């Protein structure tokens, strides 16, 4: 009989994430996939600047903490000197789609054989709820008190759609962690992304729509509804590329 246990790759500790935050779920899924694929001892991960900066306290594999937005570049260096290892980045929306946009696009375009776990919670969490590159039109943040506007701030960046045209990209999927079925879909997507890397296919990315109840100023249950009703409308889940 199967028992629900802590994955080997997940350290036995309490995380610093807020109640209702999606990071803990994605960490667990990541750890489960690494265990399933039996790659923990050959995996090197990168931690971003953002709420997940200390994820090396939770994920038990070799890890490097990168400068804001630079994880894809550091991952490029790591993967190129260790092509036989599995390298992943774990990045938030500000990290991946604002300050690190150039690194994201060019790492994808080079077809670096790495896996990117992209947490999109449409806000800057760590710094207290400022506008993110993925913040939706009309969404209020501490730097868009009247709501994000098309004129001045521009619209939200759709990362999967943006990266789809690049030849070096082999797999793109957008999922969520706002319902049991979404969680399972995210788990499958992360596994698929790592399998792409193991097969040497190139750049793979899973964009996970995730909750930030604290900075959205919503209760955890309302935050889940926000993902399901608001975010999924702007950011449709699904496979954007699979080659």
């Amino acid at each position, binding site marked *: 009989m199967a028992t629900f246990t802590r994955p080997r790759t997940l350290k036995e500790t309490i995380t610093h994430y807020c109640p209702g935050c999606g990071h803990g779920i994605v960490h667990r899924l990541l750890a489960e996939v690494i265990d399933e694929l039996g790659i923990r*001892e050959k995996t090197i991960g990168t931690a971003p600047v953002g709420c997940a*900066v200390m994820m090396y306290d939770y994920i038990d594999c070799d890890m*490097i903490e990168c*400068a804001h937005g*630079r994880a894809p*570049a550091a991952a*490029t*260096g790591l993967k190129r*000197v260790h092509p036989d290892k599995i390298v992943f980045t774990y990045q938030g929306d500000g990290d991946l789609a604002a300050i690190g946009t150039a690194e994201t696009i060019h790492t994808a375009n080079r077809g670096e054989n790495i896996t990117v776990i992209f947490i999109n919670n449409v806000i800057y969490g760590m710094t207290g709820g400022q506008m993110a590159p993925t913040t939706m039109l009309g969404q209020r943040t501490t730097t868009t008190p009247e709501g994000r506007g098309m004129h001045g701030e521009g619209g939200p960046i759709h990362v999967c759609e943006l990266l789809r045209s690049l030849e070096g990209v082999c797999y793109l999927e957008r999922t969520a962690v706002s319902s049991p079925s979404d969680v399972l879909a995210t788990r499958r997507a992360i596994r698929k992304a790592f399998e792409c890397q193991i097969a040497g296919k190139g750049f793979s990315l899973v964009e996970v729509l995730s909750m930030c109840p604290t900075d959205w100023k919503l209760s955890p249950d309302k935050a889940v509804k926000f993902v399901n009703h608001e975010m999924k409308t702007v950011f449709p889940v699904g496979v954007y590329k699979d080659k």
Partner: protein
Amino acid sequence: MGQKVLLKGNEAMAEAAVQAGCRFFAGYPITPQNEVPEYLSWRLPQAGGVFVQAESEVAAINMVFGAAAGGARCMTSSSSPGISLKQEGISYIAAAELPCVIANMQRGGPGLGNIRASQGDYFQAVKGGGHGDYRLIVLGPAYVQELYDLTMHAFDWADLYRNPVMILGDGILGQIAEPLDIRPYRPIAELPAKDFALTGCAGRASRVVKTLILQPADGLVHHNEYLQQKYRRIEEELSLYEEYETEDAEILIAAYGMSGRIAKGAVRRARQKGIKAGLIRPITLWPFPKEPFRRAAERVSRILVVEMSSGQFVEDVQLASECRVPVEFFGKGGGWYPLDTEILEIVESMQANPSVWATRKD
């Protein structure tokens, strides 16, 4: 000594890196250092290494951050404006104590400046550059052969001290072709095992390379103290300089890199004219070789600093000579070069009119 070949400084530096076992290079095109990525784009793959043309200077230094964390000997090179862009990454690399080599073939600044050679990035290189309290080991080669030799040592010092090393060259040094003895690489010391390297945690506990230290509250203070201790140890152990005709010198010229070798020519001519001139040419710029200046300050009557900038290196000379003798300055920023004839003229006028030069300080 083997057969010499004619190589540009930039190419010689690139070849030295390969000889020293550098297996990863990331860089971005900028004049006057383009020969480095161009050379390594074919030479590194030939040696089983990796060359990546990065999308930016920022990405390049962070690729090096990753490769260094992976335990590879690695390098990036650029010129002044590009080095400014790399400063964030350099701070992280210094904080994480990752070994790597960064070359700056300096050009005129500030801003986009020009593409003539310069020494205007001295402060940036030896005093900091990026944020936080850290030091780079900084080397100031003056000849193509010296650039080659020091580049190989740079990788060793980087590994020995787990610290980034900067080669502070200039556009002329990178561009001139001089006869080069392609000496085989020999490590300068027994190098420590890279027990920090991220290679996958098979058979060991997982490792983390990080620079964020929040816990305990004074953890970062302790890390800084530890770094400072390391820097003091480097200061005690590493000091390279050339002394030329200093034994009986009355006028001492202090200059490094390209201006150092030009000044050496001026000293040679001054001696031919019977003027007791001498030269101290620091080769390590950090640590700064204070001792020869302290000694010289007891003997010489004046020091002339020659520098291809508006006055940066001169401050370290003043500190090292403890202001015991007047320090005169001959330098300009913006891609200006001194001629040995010009330096000689100044030395001659210093010899003829000691008071004129001494009062110029006021």
